[in-house]
């Protein structure tokens, strides 16, 4: 029979192995997630004509070629505009919706909350076809406005959820105090609620931007004839074959879509730090 002490030791040993296994799988998952992206970034500097390994030398020629590709530049500008408009509009209507959903009690609120997150759950193909069928049924052309409104719908659930999560933590007495001191509804929202919501506003806007900038499937259905967004442009370039130019394009896109949120986060962090330094008494509780 095994002594209690030895059994305990064995169990401890088992636990350690289980933990090591967990760590190992975690490491593998992270490698799995980033290896293809790393390969793409590395290959974008390949001097070779072909989009693949082995590397034959370091070169920036594919970036130069990219800068001269008028189609790509146009698609980039198109996507940038759509994403900026989407981010601004989605944030505005999303924050207001979250405010209503958290502060107010009204009939149908539960149904509305469910409806609001549906665009995130219904496959884009279905959303894409649906809108197209509607447009065809009423004999309207596909326009830029339609594409932008569609992107807003796709981004709305995320902005509302982020703003709602933040909103729940803001106590209503602050707003009510402002109201009782004679502030109007609008100015109490603008002066009290909105500043407290800023992290959610920035976070939501950034997410809406990337959702729009990234959107592929739905944009394939909704884009007006002849218009390419960045992802649909990449898709049509890939129909031929993978080239170093696409890898370079991918790298630029990664820099934009990862760099902007990171930069935003850093700016936000330093802003709060500056504020804190400015008002040390208020922060010290």
């Amino acid at each position, binding site marked *: 029979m095994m002594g209690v002490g030895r059994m305990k030791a064995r169990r401890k040993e088992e636990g350690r192995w289980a933990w090591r296994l967990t760590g190992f799988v975690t490491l593998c998952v992270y490698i799995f997630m980033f290896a293809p992206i790393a390969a793409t970034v590395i290959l974008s500097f390949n001097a070779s004509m072909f989009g693949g390994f082995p590397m034959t030398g370091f070169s920036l020629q594919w970036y130069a070629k990219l800068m001269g590709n008028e189609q790509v530049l146009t698609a980039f500008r198109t996507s940038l505009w759509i994403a900026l408009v989407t981010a601004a509009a989605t944030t505005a209507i999303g924050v207001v919706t979250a405010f209503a959903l958290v502060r107010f009690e009204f009939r149908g609120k539960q149904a509305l909350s469910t409806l609001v997150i549906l665009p995130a*759950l219904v496959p884009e193909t279905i959303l894409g076809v649906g809108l197209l069928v509607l447009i065809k049924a009423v004999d309207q052309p596909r326009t830029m406005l339609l594409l932008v409104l569609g992107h807003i719908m796709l981004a709305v659930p995320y902005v509302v959820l982020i703003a709602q999560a933040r909103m729940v933590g803001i106590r209503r007495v602050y707003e009510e105090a402002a109201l009782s001191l004679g502030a109007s509804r609008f100015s109490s929202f603008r002066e009290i609620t909105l500043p407290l919501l800023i992290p959610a506003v920035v976070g939501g806007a950034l997410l809406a931007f990337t959702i729009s900038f990234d959107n592929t499937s739905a944009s394939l259905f909704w884009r007006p004839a002849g218009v390419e967004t960045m992802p649909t442009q990449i*898709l049509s370039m890939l129909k031929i074959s993978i080239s170093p130019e696409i890898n370079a394009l991918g790298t630029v896109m990664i820099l934009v879509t990862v760099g902007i949120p990171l930069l935003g986060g850093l700016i936000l962090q330093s802003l709060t730090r500056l504020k804190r330094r400015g008002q040390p008494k208020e922060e010290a509780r």
Partner: protein
Amino acid sequence: MERRWTLYDPRLAWMLVAPVLLLLIFFLVLPIAVMAAYTFFTFVTAGVETSALTTANWHEFLTDSYYHGFLLKTLRVGAMTALLCGVLGYFPAYFIWATTFKHKWLLLLLLIVPFWISFTIRTFSWINILGEQGVINVALLKLGIINEPLPMLYNEGAVILGLLHFLLPYMILNVYVSLEGIDRTLISAARSMGCTSAQAFREVTLPLSLPGLAAGLLLCFVLAAGSYVTPQLLGSGRDALFGNLIYDTIMGELNWPMGATLSIVLFVVLGFFAAIYTRYMGMSQIVKGLAG
């Protein structure tokens, strides 16, 4: 006489949600309703249909095994992807939750970064790994282990791999959120009562994290089964999923009534699974998972 406005007047609430409500009605509810009606329209020729009502589209879908095959394959790929995500995603979620590593936020940030990288780019980047000139083939050829590149791309495995790559962060975050919600004193209590760490995990942590796992499974299944880009880029024609079938029916054959029928089928089938899920679990876990 009109009622006076109260502080939290429902009328004001409706004014505030009006923009979102209108948008969702015109871009989500109405399209799906019109699409449902379109399934009964008569297809004349490419791009032309009449509103003469017919059940021909439904009849074609229900009797043609071509469509059934597509549907079954789509559900199979979706289920495989969701299960693999669940198994592979649980470990990192647990690790991030339990680790004493000081920069935990970095591990979480790395999970969110993929959401910022274009989905199309993440998908095609697999060509650089699996392709004939990809990392694996070139390395194996150099080492002399193989003489010819292995055909790893353009098959169902590559499609599932791509979907896994796209969906793992969703799963990990969902599980992590529900692990975060566990009262850690419960685990200490179980340990002090004589549970081994494995027992404490099996009896306390795992059951309490199941809602997150279930939400992740549903999300991964629905998103995988509704995908279009991944099978398009990483699969061959044979590995096309239902989303590709819908796209080709509408954009290629211009058969709108049939395309609408297929879309409604996918919508109803996936909605069925979501309904079963919400029947038992409710919506709140999905909401938590999406909000990160």
